[in-house]
């Protein structure tokens, strides 16, 4: 032990984007490879970040490698900008990327990092969506060994996964996968689209925006390039169904704040045990509310 050692206290600063330039370069190279092979899980040396594995380090590394001073960033979790994890990530980016604008309005963002939801509003060719991924591999449910899964993906051999869907239908008369619905990209690789609800899966198909998926702990990056086929796995005679927001009388439930009957809803239980619903996408809900009050005034 060196008794005279003193901590370099003035050394507390970080480079723009927290990661060093070599790390960012590696991530960008990986992104390019992922886009060139749609749906392929590209391995990369995921760096440790100041937030825990499982809290979005994969998505964050994508964002930090892509973001520049002329970007406008939106961060959401469960569809909300105000969710604790989104707040934490957004603050971190603001801390390490001075000059970057942040926004809650979807249409203002150039880069959107999201956990578990795709915004209701259709994205544009000028936008990139980054999704946070816990499990990159749809086959993990039938095969624990990564080495064996790699061969199955290479040969597009998803029969064991399809058998699982078959057994589901036999037992429960429908496919019971709720979120993380296996989706085939560009006709070959089947991905786990991250824990987005089935509601959001159709938004991957022919999307004008680039969708990037980052798994920090599992150390994989994959992509759904713009205007690419994204087809949820189904049987020819069993259609893909999204979540159902109809009440017991068959009436579509509306958001309690803005009245929307076309968005994904969060179910809330208040202190008296009453169940109400409101839009999961908070920015969308606010915009709807503004439109309504503008109309009222007009």
């Amino acid at each position, binding site marked *: 032990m060196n008794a005279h050692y003193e901590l370099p206290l003035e050394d507390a600063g970080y480079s723009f984007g927290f990661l060093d330039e070599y790390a960012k370069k590696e991530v960008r190279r990986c992104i390019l490879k992922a886009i060139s092979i749609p749906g392929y899980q590209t391995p*990369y*040396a995921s760096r440790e970040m100041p937030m*825990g*594995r499982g809290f979005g380090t994969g998505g964050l590394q994508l964002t930090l490698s892509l973001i520049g001073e002329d970007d406008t960033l939106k961060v959401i979790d469960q569809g909300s900008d105000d969710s*604790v*994890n989104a707040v934490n990530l957004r603050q971190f980016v603001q801390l390490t990327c001075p000059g970057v604008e942040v926004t809650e309005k979807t249409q203002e963002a150039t880069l959107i990092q999201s956990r578990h939801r795709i915004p209701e509003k259709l994205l544009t060719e000028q936008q990139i969506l980054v999704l946070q991924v816990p499990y990159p591999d749809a086959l993990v449910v039938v095969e624990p060994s990564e080495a064996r899964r790699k061969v199955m993906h290479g040969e597009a051999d998803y029969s064991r996964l399809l058998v699982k869907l078959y057994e589901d239908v036999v037992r429960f008369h*429908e496919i*019971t*996968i709720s*979120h993380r619905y296996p989706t085939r990209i560009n006709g070959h690789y089947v991905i786990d689209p991250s824990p987005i609800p089935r509601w959001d899966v159709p938004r991957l198909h022919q999307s004008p925006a680039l969708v990037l998926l980052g798994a920090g702990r599992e150390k994989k990056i994959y992509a759904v390039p713009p205007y690419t086929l994204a087809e949820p796995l189904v049987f020819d005679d069993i259609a893909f169904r999204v979540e159902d927001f109809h009440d017991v009388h068959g009436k579509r439930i509306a958001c309690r704040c803005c009245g929307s009957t076309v968005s994904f809803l969060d179910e809330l239980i208040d202190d008296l045990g009453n169940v109400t619903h409101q839009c999961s996408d908070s920015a969308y809900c606010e915009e709807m509310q503004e439109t309504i009050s503008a109309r009222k005034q007009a």
Partner: protein
Amino acid sequence: MSYVAIKGGKAAIDGAAAATDYLRCRGSLDEPLTLAMIEEQLRLLISRVISEGGLYHPRLAALALKQFQGDTLEAAFALRAYRSTKPRLLESPVQDTANMRCIRRISSAFKEVPGGQYLGATYDYALRLLQLDLANEDPAAFKDVAKAFLRNTPETELPNNFPKVIDSLRAEGLLPPVTPSRAAAFDITRDPLVFPVPRSAALATMARAETGGLLAMAYSNMRGYGDVHPTVAELRVGYLPVMLPHPVTGELMEAGEVLITECEVVAMYEGTNGDEMPTFTLGYGACFGHNEVKAISMAILDRALQKGMRDGPSNPSEDPEFVLLHVDGVDSMGFASHYKMPHYVTFQSDMDRLRHTQQKMQQKESEMTT
């Protein structure tokens, strides 16, 4: 009644930070912990954190432990995150642990070994009886303990370094000779693990693995989910001089030293193909700091994984994917903790499925009864 969306995520996070600070500082004493106290008097805790953090910086480890109120997983995590941002200046050449300045050196394989057996500072044979008088330790007596030790220790000529026990096994042909390798070691901080991985990747992953997780895996092998049956040929704890090339002349110079623990286990010989002489097999473990349980566990798993990679795993501790993907403390702790994050959208999706399925089953039942 109109509803307003509740906001307050930022306030909640700020509140959580204030609450943890409060808990750290509200004690009955006026003095905060000093980094020197942690570093000097809790050296084994420091060893654990620098080893799992993968960063040899005892002072920063002390800071991390102080900041995170003693949580070793969080402290190791903080060191890793800090390391993430540091530029790579150079890579050291291979260091020879035979040059270690040992503070402890034992061999279970032989009663006497060249250089001698040195028990050193160990609790192995200590009685785990709580010393209650530590509750009111007199500062003067405390200061005198170290002075007395040095006073009472006679001047002896200690060897500068000790030959490796396994070298004598090699000389007799009981262990295979070392085949020098030109291949660079696999850098787990720069390249992803894609199985099958080389042995250097497995060793590097285990060197910074979480001690408890690694121990559990090794223990499973010791108890019978595997058959390494090891003998510790040598266990060393000591200071390894770090030799780096001079920036101008290129000559190797001692830049400093690091405290490491190294363990070499010898396992039973295995069958060979044809005329090759059978030999013992070797398992190797090494980590930053003084952590013998970790080094021993690592050596046993090294042997188990080599066997698994050669013959196919017959137990989890022999399966490289199973071991290497589950022993990293930062990965495992992060994922365990992430379950506390909001998952209400995915849960909404789950509820939708279950409600539907229940509906369908009810329909089927009522169809059957009509």
